[in-house]
């Protein structure tokens, strides 16, 4: 049987399930919310019998599961409790239950890994470099003078969070910590501050999003507007138009390096952000193991949904 681990509002899950149905696959879906809502959930451990697990009203027999897709897994308690302390305690409890479940499933062939095992940005860069890919120069430091020296005046630099997405609400204002350009002369005046990540900005020709599944690359080029504008000055641009999303085929050599990278970081699936620079070099930025494949699959007509379904079915067959 195929086990799908996801959240109940995830539309991409439905698209893959359509294909699983098409191929008459044997699958069972669990949503993170199934642990809290009005569906039977139960883990029973005693001195005599094997552990018994029920999720979403159904008893899970580990021997039956040959194939797992870790799509998403998360739940927000903030809405229900509106109290940071309560919701963070509940979050910790939920994490522990999840960790227990995922440890049980650990040796079953799967697509993706669960978020907790994901690699930090710096390790990703190191492995990308080891695989022969170009990466942007990167600094993480708490010392002003280090940052000042790192930034040269010829290039532009950006800062972005290593991982945490911060969403702050102060009065009527909202603060988000997205990627932004950084100016050498506008660094904080303190000599020491909380460590931050600074990266040399690659002047891009186009962005590329590459979805990798089972040693195959599905790439899409993203033309950003401002970029086109500088190239072609005789047009008046309508800003309401979305960026162009079109199929792209990376050079074989780059694909091989990306696959080597995936091997190093032990991922069989993920979405990689790449920049093609003005001087025609490919730069690795980061991998997102639970990336939205729909945003690549649909505009490029790659039908990745079917490919995911077929891979899950293959795992299931091999396990029988």
């Amino acid at each position, binding site marked *: 049987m195929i086990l799908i681990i996801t959240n109940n509002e995830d539309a991409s899950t439905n698209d893959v399930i359509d294909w699983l149905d*098409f191929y008459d696959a044997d699958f069972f879906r669990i949503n993170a919310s199934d642990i809290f809502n009005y569906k039977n959930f139960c883990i029973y451990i005693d001195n005599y019998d094997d552990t018994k697990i029920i999720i979403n009203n159904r008893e899970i027999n580990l021997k039956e599961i040959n194939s797992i897709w870790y799509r998403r897994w998360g739940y927000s308690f903030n809405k229900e409790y509106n109290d940071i302390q309560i919701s963070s305690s509940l979050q910790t409890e939920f994490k522990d239950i999840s960790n227990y479940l995922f440890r049980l499933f650990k040796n079953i062939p799967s697509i993706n890994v669960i978020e907790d095992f994901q690699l930090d940005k710096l390790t990703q860069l190191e492995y990308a470099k080891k695989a022969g890919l170009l990466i942007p120069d990167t600094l993480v430091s708490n010392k002003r003078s280090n940052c000042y020296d790192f930034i040269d005046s010829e290039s532009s630099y950006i800062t972005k969070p290593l991982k945490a997405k911060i969403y702050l609400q102060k009065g009527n204002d909202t603060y988000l910590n997205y990627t932004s350009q950084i100016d050498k002369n506008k660094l904080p005046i303190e000599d020491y501050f909380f460590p931050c990540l600074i990266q040399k900005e690659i002047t891009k020709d186009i962005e590329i999003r590459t979805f990798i599944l089972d040693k195959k690359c599905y790439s899409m080029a993203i033309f950003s507007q401002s970029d086109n504008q500088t190239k072609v000055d005789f047009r008046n641009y309508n800003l309401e138009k979305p960026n162009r999303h079109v199929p792209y*085929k990376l050079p074989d050599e780059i694909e091989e390096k990306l696959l080597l990278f995936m091997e190093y970081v032990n991922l069989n699936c993920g979405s990689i952000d790449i920049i093609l620079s003005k001087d025609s070099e490919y730069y690795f930025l980061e991998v997102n193991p639970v990336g939205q494949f729909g945003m690549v699959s649909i505009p490029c007509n790659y039908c990745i949904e079917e490919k995911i379904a077929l891979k899950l079915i293959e795992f299931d067959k091999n396990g029988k």
Partner: protein
Amino acid sequence: MNIKLHSNCIPIKGYYRSIIIDLQRKTYYFIPNSMFEIIQQFTKKRITEIKKLYTEEESKIIDEYINFLFSNDLCFYYNDVNEDYFSPLSFDYKSPSKITNAIISVKSNSIIVNKIVEQLDKLGCKAIQIQMLDNIDINELENISHCFNDSRIRDIQLLFPYNEYLEKENLLKLLETNHRITKLFVFGAPNSEIIFLDEYRKFPVYLTKQKIENYSFCGNIHPQNFTCNMSFFIESQFYNTCLNRKVCIDTNGNIKNCPNMQKTYGNIQDTTLTEAILKQGFKDYWFIKKDDIDVCQDCEFRHICTDCRAFIKDPENIYSQPSKCSYNPYIAKWEGQEGWISVEEWRKDNKYNQNRVVES
């Protein structure tokens, strides 16, 4: 430097003029056939080389064409280094649904709907249009929509006759609680208009004065009914844009390709939908694509136009043009436009060559 059209912007040549379909932004642009020819050369030659083949006057026109392409963001410059990497869009049509859409005509009860929802689900059907011929009240509408609560159908359109006792608030409640219902069409209304059930104009109701006793109102070919998107375009390459993976059940329970067609493939009382679509002949219409159809194959709209095989100009010829189409692609005019003549008249005057005029 060279120019390339984005691979989701696709030029389609018609007899008299062409269009470029922008599949991402879901729109299309008219272009002259001379521009189509120039675009074809982009793949082989640099702009400077292309211009050499033309006079200076013509070169100016080429510049205008290029300007047009850039100002609508239909093309881009690329250098030789990454030239091969912009791959064409695949025209592979893939769908996990054995049936993608269904039309059911019912006479004032939800029993039949109930019975077939499960069957449609099994076939992977995602969209359904339900036509109710008899007067219907809000309870019946609710009953029908409840039939879909556990199904995977994502898009339900309801057609029913005007009934002055149907309250706006009740209809709004119906739509707010059933997100799958995407459209309401009301026939025999006092006025033809679109009204909104809510202040945010999220829930429109389409009213028409026309009365319906059957399904013969369908099949009109009009630019308003053109569909400009990727899945439609790709399906149109190999399949019929109306009948592919469609199943219909008429008021008598007969299973058909289209409510307006005579041939039935069994009755829902004793035949399942799965059995019916496997019967010989059922899928034949699915494969009649626009490129096979007389006149349409010469028309620039052939990959955005919903076909009709029920109402055709020559009932003896299943490959003839839809009879509810008043477009003449040989002169690029709709009936009513100045200078319009029918395709038949045009062909008499122009010794129409039976072979296909436009290469696809």
